[in-house]
Structure formats: structure tokens, C-alpha cells
């Protein structure tokens, strides 16, 4: 039994690291976008398009890192488009995001057909478990550099929002566009840049899916992970470090179902498999009080009005 418990705990720990990275990148991208006062629900489309682009470019160039970069660039193009059209009066950012979700996945499926079967070079992992002689631990500590890159981006964003000038500008645009305008900053320009960078991060998240874990391009690759990651930003209350925590929690919870079944605890596996969703909802119900629920929410967000 003790053995089973440690197997499950280790699987959840390893799963948290393996599965969390795309959630982390997408939610950080969305966090930045939303801090500037816009919502981009289209990151799911960007994630899928990024996954396809990353895989295709890695296949053609032979370098997975060029694939990651291409995925980011493709994502930033989508983000830039979103950022550009949403500055037009009466254009609804939430609706455009939903439409772009459809458009992005459609394009990815259309152009991705020839890449389902070929095997592209995949991203390497850092072997951080060399000190252990337990194979499971060694395996759990094979970590992709993008995980650390994501953690670094989270820390930098968190620090920059508080301590840097541009962090302040982004937050100000998100909280009161009138103030930002009065201070002489172009609200549209700030939001355009924030959405573009957000798109870049989401594209990189997609490349992680296709180039590292699970590491292949198929049309079923993302089962709504981009959409879920956008939702996690609200869960994390627009704090980049909390985004990291939420992504890790969500990734770890996703490992519960398979891990329990692997040690023979299988009755009710439907609910174990839904653990990430159930846990997130429970945590929200237990932790959020109506008074402070919107703390940290950018006031300009149309979702919040």
C-alpha cells in the first residue's frame, strides 16, 4: 500500500511538471493580455496553431528550437491581429477571441494534415535526476527547459508588474484607460503589444505539446487546454506567480486519474479523470469570498463589468 501511495504521489509530482507547461505559457500570455484590459479567448486557437507550426517547422528545419520560435512567431501574428482589430470601436474582444479560436484551429487542421504521420525532431529534456538511483525519480526529474523558461517568465512578469515602468503602464491601461490616456500613453498601442506578446507565449505553449509532451501533432492534441488555461487566469486572480501555481496544480490533478488506475484503484475512474476540473471548482468555492473575488481584476476588462 505504501508502495502504491508513493507511486501515485510521484506520478502526480511528475505529471505536474510534464503537463503544466502549456497551461503555464497560455495562462501567462493571457494574464499579460488581460492586465492590459483586453481578453483574448482565442488562445486555444493559437495554442493549436502553434503546436502544428512548431511540429511542421521542426520537421522541415530539423531543429525543434526553431520550431518553438516559429510557433511563437505564428502565435504573435494571431495575437497582433486580435490586438489590432479590437481597437476598432464596437469590436468585441471576447467575441473576436471565440471566432479566432475557430479560425486558428481550422487553419491548423487544414495545414497540419501532412504532419500527422511524420516524426519530427523533439525537444530534449534536462536530466536532473542523476543523483538518484530510483528509475522513477530519475524519470520524474527529466524536465524540459521550457518548464523553467515558463517559471522564469512568471517571475519576471510578477516582478515587472510591480517594479517596472512598463509594468505600471500595462496595469494602468488595464485599470483605467482614461488615466493612461491622460498620462500620454497610447492605450491601443499598449494593448496591441500585450496581446501580441500573449500570443507569442500561447504559441510556445502549443509547441511544447507537439514537440515535447505528449510530443506529436494530431488534431486531438489539445482537448481544450488553451481555453482552460485562459480560465485559470481568473482562478489565479491575474497574478503571474499564482498562474504558475494554478498550472502546476492543474497538471498534477490531471495525473491523478491515470496514476490511481496504474496501482489498481479504478472504481469511478471517470471522476478521477475529471479531477482537475472538480478540484479547481472546489477550491474556488472554498477559497473565494464574494468580497475579495475580484481583487486584482483589471477594471477595464469587459468580462468584469
Amino acid at each position, binding site marked *: 500500500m505504501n508502495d502504491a501511495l508513493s507511486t501515485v504521489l510521484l506520478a502526480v509530482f511528475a505529471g505536474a511538471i510534464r503537463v503544466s507547461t502549456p497551461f503555464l505559457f497560455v495562462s501567462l500570455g493571457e494574464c499579460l493580455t488581460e492586465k492590459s484590459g483586453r481578453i483574448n479567448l482565442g488562445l486555444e*486557437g493559437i495554442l493549436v496553431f502553434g503546436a502544428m507550426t512548431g511540429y511542421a517547422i521542426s520537421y522541415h528545419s530539423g531543429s525543434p528550437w526553431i520550431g518553438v520560435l516559429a510557433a511563437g512567431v505564428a502565435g504573435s501574428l494571431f495575437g497582433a491581429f486580435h490586438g489590432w*482589430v479590437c481597437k*476598432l*470601436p*464596437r*469590436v*468585441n474582444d*471576447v*467575441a*473576436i477571441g*471565440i*471566432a*479566432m479560436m*475557430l*479560425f*486558428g*484551429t*481550422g*487553419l491548423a*487542421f*487544414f495545414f497540419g*494534415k501532412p504532419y500527422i504521420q511524420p516524426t519530427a525532431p523533439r525537444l530534449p529534456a534536462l536530466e536532473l535526476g542523476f543523483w538518484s538511483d530510483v528509475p522513477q525519480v530519475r524519470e520524474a526529474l527529466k524536465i524540459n527547459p521550457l518548464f523553467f523558461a515558463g517559471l522564469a517568465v512568471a517571475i519576471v512578469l510578477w516582478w515587472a508588474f510591480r517594479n517596472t515602468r512598463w509594468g505600471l503602464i500595462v496595469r494602468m491601461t488595464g485599470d483605467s484607460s482614461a488615466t493612461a490616456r491622460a498620462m500620454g500613453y497610447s492605450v491601443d498601442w499598449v494593448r496591441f503589444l500585450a496581446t501580441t506578446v500573449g500570443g507569442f507565449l500561447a504559441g510556445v505553449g502549443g509547441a511544447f505539446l507537439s514537440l515535447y509532451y505528449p510530443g506529436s501533432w494530431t488534431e486531438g492534441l489539445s482537448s481544450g487546454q488553451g*481555453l*482552460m488555461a485562459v*480560465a*485559470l487566469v*481568473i*482562478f489565479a486572480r491575474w497574478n503571474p506567480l499564482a498562474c504558475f501555481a494554478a498550472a502546476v496544480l492543474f497538471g498534477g490533478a490531471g495525473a491523478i486519474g491515470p496514476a490511481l488506475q496504474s496501482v489498481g484503484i479504478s472504481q*469511478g475512474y*471517470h*471522476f478521477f*479523470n*475529471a479531477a482537475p*476540473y*472538480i478540484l*479547481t*471548482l472546489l477550491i*474556488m*468555492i472554498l477559497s*473565494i*469570498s*464574494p*468580497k*475579495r*473575488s*475580484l481583487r486584482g481584476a483589471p477594471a477595464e476588462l*469587459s*468580462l468584469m*463589468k
Partner: protein
Amino acid sequence: MTETTQSSGLAAPSAIGEWIGGMRRSAEFIVIPLFALFVSASLFSLFLLALGKSPQTFFELLWRGGFGTEFSWQNTLVRTAPLILTALCVAIPARLGLVIIGGEGALVLSGFTAAVVALPLLSWAPPFVVMPVMLLTAAITGALWIGAVGALRHYRGINETIASLLMFYIAVSILNFFVEGVLRDPSDPNKPSTAPIGPANMVGEIPGLHVHWGLAFGVVIAIVLGIVMSRTTFGFAARVTGGNVRAARAQGLPVGTLMVSATMIAGACAGVAGYFEVAAILGKANGSLIAGYGFTGILVSFLARHNPIAIAPVAVLFGGLAAAGGLIQRRMGLPDATVQVLQGLIFVVLLVSETLYGRFRLFDPEARG
């Protein structure tokens, strides 16, 4: 969310001038979407030409497959039916500023409960008992499921978008747990389903249309809700709340009651859609309930700008594109994703075209000449 729809064609025709003004404003709501459709068609033609495919063939097939024959219309309308109801599930809360994206969960769970509540009745109750019980059960399930989202939002401050999305995944696991488990009908080994509700309890077709009654229900509910949202105190209070919650509270509006009742109405709509999936098509509850109608409904509602009356024509557009998609795949050898690209393009362009409203003097009733 910007509110731009109230005035469409509702100007009182007390004077000729006002009447013309109303006409001009209505014309704007026809001309601009048509223009947007034209632009997206042109952009998509370029896409096709780049692939070496004929745009002319494509659009001929699109017309033929979606609207060109009597069968095409049936095909289109049968796909339209659930979309009207799931779009309403988004539109009503949206009037209060709530973005519900988990209508699919309410549809799935309601279809499931409708099928289950019928099981003990089948042996003794006549259809005129079973059918309303099923419909009511589905509507109540949906109302409670999405109503819970509204209640969580108001009383616990939990964001309704994320809650409804999470609850979709939970609804699917509930369905699968029971359908693949205790409620599974052993006679269908390869598609886990509940026991069939029997042909007598199935909903028939609208005479002459070959489309099930879900379409008529959808249209009627949309019109009723359209009137409720534009002509009643409830609708007015909802719009005020959607415009500015603080102002609504200051006015003494019962914001909590409004939120919960709007989400309950929304959920009931999705629930009715779930009922018709079971009672008009599947005859039992199974994984086919998860067909994405709830998610397509989000797009329909946003394109209709959450106006219940506008939802029906937008849903027909969606239904037509989906119906024609098959013909296009077959005749042109294009993958299914082609239609998705076209859909995405149309939606993006239509949504961007909203920026054109009010920019042309031609449509401005205040402008003379």
C-alpha cells in the same frame, strides 16, 4: 459589452420622417452584414485560388448544399434547431454581462436526465405523460445546472465563465459514469447508452418540413425571450444590470435574483435542446449528446449580438454552412477543416464589421439628404 441593438427597426412610425429614419437604421443592419459576408467570401476565394481550387464551384456547392434544394433546407434547419436553443443559453445571461460558455454541459446533463426519468415510466405511462415529464425534467436540470453558475457568481463571487466551463467537464464525467456503468443498456455493446425511450415517446417532425419540433420550440422560445428582454421590466432591469452593476444596485434592483433567474432561463433553454437531442434523434442518452452544439451556440449568440430575435437567422447561417460542408468535402476533395476555416473567417469579418455601424451618413436618420 457594447449595446447597440435595441433600436433596430423598433422606431415608432408616428411620422413619415421617423419611419424613414427607422428604415435607414434597419437597412444598416442588413447592408453591413451582407458586405461583411461579401468580404469574407472574397478573402476565402483567394485562399481557394492559392490552393488551386475553384471558388465558383465552392460557392455553387455551398449554396446547393445549404439552401439550394428542399433537402438542403431540411439539412440546414435540422442543424439549426439545437443551435437556437444553445445560443439563447449564452444570450440571456449576456444581457446581464455574464459570459456563460458551459451551455454544452447543461445540454448533455439534461439529455441524460430526460432519458433516465423516462425509464421507470416506460412500462405503464402513455406518451402524453412521458413526453412532458421528460421535457420538464430536462428544462429543470438545465435551469439548476446553469442557475448554479449564476448563484455561485452572485453569492460566492466565482467567475461564471470558468465555473460553467469546469462544470461542462464534470457533466461529461457524470454522463459517462452512469451511461458506461449502472444505467448501461446491455443490448448495445459498442455504444454505451441508457435503455431506449421507445418509438412511442419520440418527438415527430413538423408536418411538411421533415424537421423535428425542436426547431419550432427554439423559434418560439427565442421570440418570447426577445419580447421579454426588450419589453418587460425584467428585460429592462437585466439591461441596466448588464450596463453597470453598481448603478443597478444603487437603483435598488435585485441583482442577485436577476442573475440567478437569467441563468436559470438560459440553462432551461440548453436543457430543452438536450431533450430534443434525446427525444427527437437519439432515442436514448449516450456520448453522442456531446456534439459541440453548446460551443457553437456561443458563436451564434455573439454574432447575433445576444439579441434573441437575431439568433434564429444566424443559427440558420451556421446550419447551412455545416450542411453544405459535407457536399463540399465530397465534391472538391477538400478536408473538413476547410469549412471551419471559412466559418472562422466569416465570423472574424462579421465581428470586425461591427465597427462600421454608425459611420455612414446614408443610414443616419438624423442626417438630411
